[in-house]
């Protein structure tokens, strides 16, 4: 990990704050994601994990703090600049968020409509779509509608869509939630393979300990809106702190 920490982070959060009325969800959260690493942020339901990751992609505007992605502060960016930066970030939504009026092919083509020029050696939409679907093992599902897919298949298609613009950073919001243990394991392995193949930096938001064990290089525990603990899976799982231990029991 020391070698990773010498590299400049691709993503950095400093003192992130967000409240909804009297509910202070994030109270000064800090995070650094380094190139090529898989960083897992764990926390209980309602601890602000999803709010944090939505702040990162500009879906929620934070009340305070800074968000630097590739040396650009997204909190001060205009819409057009932010849209361009977003092409370098893949995002897997908790509920897959596939466009249900479009086929799998159209879902994957959608991000390419305006941003084909972002892809090096662009050889055509069809080739990219097929490659993305092959990566997730769903080449045969290309003309199906999202409603015709199982939950696990939907998650795979959503992952293919997140990868289609060849992003350097991928954010996963609860990638295994709602899936059975076998499908969840398949998704975790798929995420790991994708990271190896494309050398992406991944930020994984989860409360699934198995997911964290398999995929994480480093972990942060988010408790009461702040970084409660930080370290590798082994370090945290062997911690004597009762709050940290609570995550790894069961």
């Amino acid at each position: 990990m020391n070698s990773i920490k010498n590299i400049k982070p691709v993503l950095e959060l400093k003192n992130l704050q967000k409240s909804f009325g009297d509910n202070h969800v994030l109270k000064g959260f800090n995070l650094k994601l380094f190139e090529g690493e898989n960083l897992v942020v764990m926390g209980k339901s309602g601890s602000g994990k999803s709010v944090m990751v939505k702040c990162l992609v500009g879906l929620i505007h934070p009340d305070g703090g800074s968000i630097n992605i590739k040396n650009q502060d997204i909190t001060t960016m205009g819409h057009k600049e932010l849209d361009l930066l977003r092409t370098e970030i893949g995002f897997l939504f908790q509920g897959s968020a596939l466009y249900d009026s479009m086929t799998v092919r159209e879902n994957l083509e959608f991000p390419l409509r305006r941003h084909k020029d972002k892809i090096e050696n662009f050889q055509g939409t069809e080739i990219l779509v097929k490659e993305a679907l092959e990566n997730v093992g769903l080449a045969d599902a290309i003309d199906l509608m999202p409603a015709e897919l199982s939950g696990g298949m939907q998650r795979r298609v959503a992952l293919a869509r997140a990868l289609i613009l060849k992003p350097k950073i991928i954010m996963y919001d609860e990638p295994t939630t709602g899936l059975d243990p076998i499908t969840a394991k398949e998704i975790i392995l798929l995420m790991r393979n994708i990271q190896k193949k494309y050398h992406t930096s991944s930020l994984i938001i989860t409360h699934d300990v198995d997911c964290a064990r398999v995929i994480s290089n480093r972990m942060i525990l988010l408790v009461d809106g702040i970084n409660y603990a930080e370290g590798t899976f082994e370090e945290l799982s062997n911690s004597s702190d009762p709050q940290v231990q609570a995550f790894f029991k069961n």
Partner: protein
Amino acid sequence: MNKADSILSQTKSFFAEIGDMTFFAGRFFKEASSSPFEFKELLRQCYNMGNRSLLLVSVTGFILGLVFTLQSRPTLMQFGAQSWMASMVSLSIVREIGPVIIALICAGRIGSGIGAELGSMRVTEQIDAMEVSGTNPFKYLVVTRIMATTLMLPLLIIMGDAIALFGSALIENLKGDVSYLLYFNQVFEALKFSDIVPATIKSVFFGFAIGLVGCYKGYYCSKGTVGVGEASNSAVVYISMLLFVIDFIAVFVTDIFI
């Protein structure tokens, strides 16, 4: 909270919503006038809204013409004024009844559909997914839908009016032994440019209102599946109310100038 406070707070939230809708309309004009333009999606929406409303508008228009003529006949006969039937029906349908009834039908068919569709996309994070993929969802979803309703509603109303007049001619032909040629001659004699233009302009505003309110309610939908139902329902209520307000303003303005 007593009754007066409750009324005051409801009034406040009503006007706050009107204010938000005005900002929403302002954003529509800003986004609609800047590139990139989503022509393909606009055409798809025009096709969806126009084509899928054809049958409903045709049936409504036809029955409207039939019923209006059947109901008016006895009264006109009492005064020996059956020969005025074509003029009266055509003026009433083209100037007022046709646009309002067909717009109300479209408020239910199109407005609630937009509210439910966008609401469902909002609660299942599909709108967020669009935003994250670097596409402006307002431009792709809202601008295209508002433009489609604004373009398609006048066409649907013109078609609905024509079918209503045909329904009226059919009754006159069956009951009054009036030929179609004579009936439509009287219709075109009665209708003037100053009857058709204000009605068409009014229907453009009706279309804009249907698209705007439907999109506003759906785009800012919250509270999960319950919210989707609320968005769809309240879109129809607001649109219906707004249609009558626009109609009143249009009639008032027309009365001043013509």
